[in-house]
């Protein structure tokens, strides 16, 4: 069985179905990229995976263990192995950069402060923010905030990192600094599921691409298969549209 196995997953917002029968598998070290038009369920899939939206049906199995989203202890265990980076960064505005990164290992995992601080400083160094340790999020650019958010997610030492359109809210000149970090993580074989509209980047770092439409996975394959030889009509239409747009 794959490291992450999603089988027949369905979810609804109120009464309207937003995911229906999604099945995917992600191996350790793989980077799965979710692409597709707006409203196709890409971000929703990530929200379901991390437990922000309860699934209606189907199953998620992480490292051989089925996740029971109705059990708080199972959710806590999941969140210890899995982290998400949001489009809008979602940093804690009342905390400094350093505290944003330290809060989960220190307060939730209750690890000793010196060790946590050393790791947090190293992570912030890795994302190029050693000079901003004591700044508050409002004092940073969008790109810097997103890099803090990535460091905060990495601080819980996730085995699976979910990236929800992490560059969509950024000015064009700030996109690259965030993509550089993700490229670095891919080189380190971090297992990731990334929702992205940066098609060039998806092609470069994804080991697998899933095209979603109307809450289902339409097609899945390597970047070359999806971008160069899409099989389904819907995939061909989407790919030709984004090629025209670029």
């Amino acid at each position, binding site marked *: 069985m794959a490291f992450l196995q999603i089988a027949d997953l369905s979810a609804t917002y109120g009464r309207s179905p937003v995911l229906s029968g999604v099945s995917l598998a992600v191996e350790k070290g793989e980077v799965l990229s979710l692409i597709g038009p707006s409203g196709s369920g890409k971000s929703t899939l990530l929200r379901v995976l*991390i*437990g*922000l939206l309860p699934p209606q049906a189907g199953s998620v199995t992480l490292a051989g263990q089925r996740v029971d989203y109705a059990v708080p202890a199972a959710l*806590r265990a999941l*969140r*210890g192995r899995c*982290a*998400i980076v*949001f489009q*809008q960064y*979602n*940093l*804690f*505005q*009342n*905390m400094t950069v350093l505290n944003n990164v330290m*809060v*989960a290992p220190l*307060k*939730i*995992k209750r690890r000793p402060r010196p060790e946590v601080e050393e790791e947090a400083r190293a992570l912030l160094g890795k994302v190029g923010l050693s000079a901003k340790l004591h700044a*508050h999020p*409002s004092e940073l650019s969008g790109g810097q905030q997103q890099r803090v*958010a990535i460091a*905060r997610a990495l601080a*819980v030492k996730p085995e699976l990192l979910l990236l929800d359109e992490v560059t969509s809210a950024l000015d064009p000149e700030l996109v690259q600094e965030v993509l550089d970090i993700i490229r670095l993580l891919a080189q380190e074989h971090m297992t990731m599921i990334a929702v992205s509209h940066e098609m060039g980047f998806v092609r470069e770092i994804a080991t697998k691409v899933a095209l979603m439409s109307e809450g289902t996975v339409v097609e899945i394959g390597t970047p070359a298969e999806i971008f160069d030889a899409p099989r389904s009509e819907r995939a061909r239409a989407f790919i030709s549209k984004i090629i025209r747009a670029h």
Partner: protein
Amino acid sequence: MGYTLQYGQVYHYIPYLLGGAWISLQIAFLCFCGGIAIGMLNAVALAFGNRLAAGVARAYVTFFTNTPGLVQIYFIYYALPDLHIVLDSVHAVVLGITLNAGGYLALILRSGFLSVPVNEIDAGVTLGMTRLMLLRYVIVPHMIGVLYPAIGNKFILMVLGTAVAGVFGVEDLMGRTINANAESFRSIELLSITAAIYVAMTICATIALSGVGMALLRRRVRFAG
């Protein structure tokens, strides 16, 4: 005009007036604390209460924010005795200002409840925070940040609003000004000194609130004063 300013005739009232200013501050502080308690109850009822609780709170807020504070205190001081509820002037004034502040502070506090940082809560939840942790590390600090300037401004307004106490014979700054004026008839001199003391009081309150804000929120907080 034929009026000669004679501050020399009123200087000796300054310690007396300053004593009144201290009483004004005490009244403001007392009413503010009471107002926060009433406002909190109403805000919780407005934001999270069932229909009955929310309805009662809405009626309270509508009444106390849509009638003049002076009328409310008049009612307590002059109308309640007809119902055999007799309060002395200080208690009537303190009760009136407190009830009035409770209405306004309810609206301010409710805005804090409604400004819950959904994005930050999502982040906290996905990091594994419990409800208590979310409250402690995310929601309450956020609410303090949102509410502090508005509540601080309300306190400053309340310091000035205590002047109404003088009308009822309370020996606050305004009351003592009225007394001194009745004795000396130097209205311009006395009222200008009183005005200066009020300005000094609000400036001191603003500086103190900003200082506390800087320590609490680690950012500059601007007040209207």
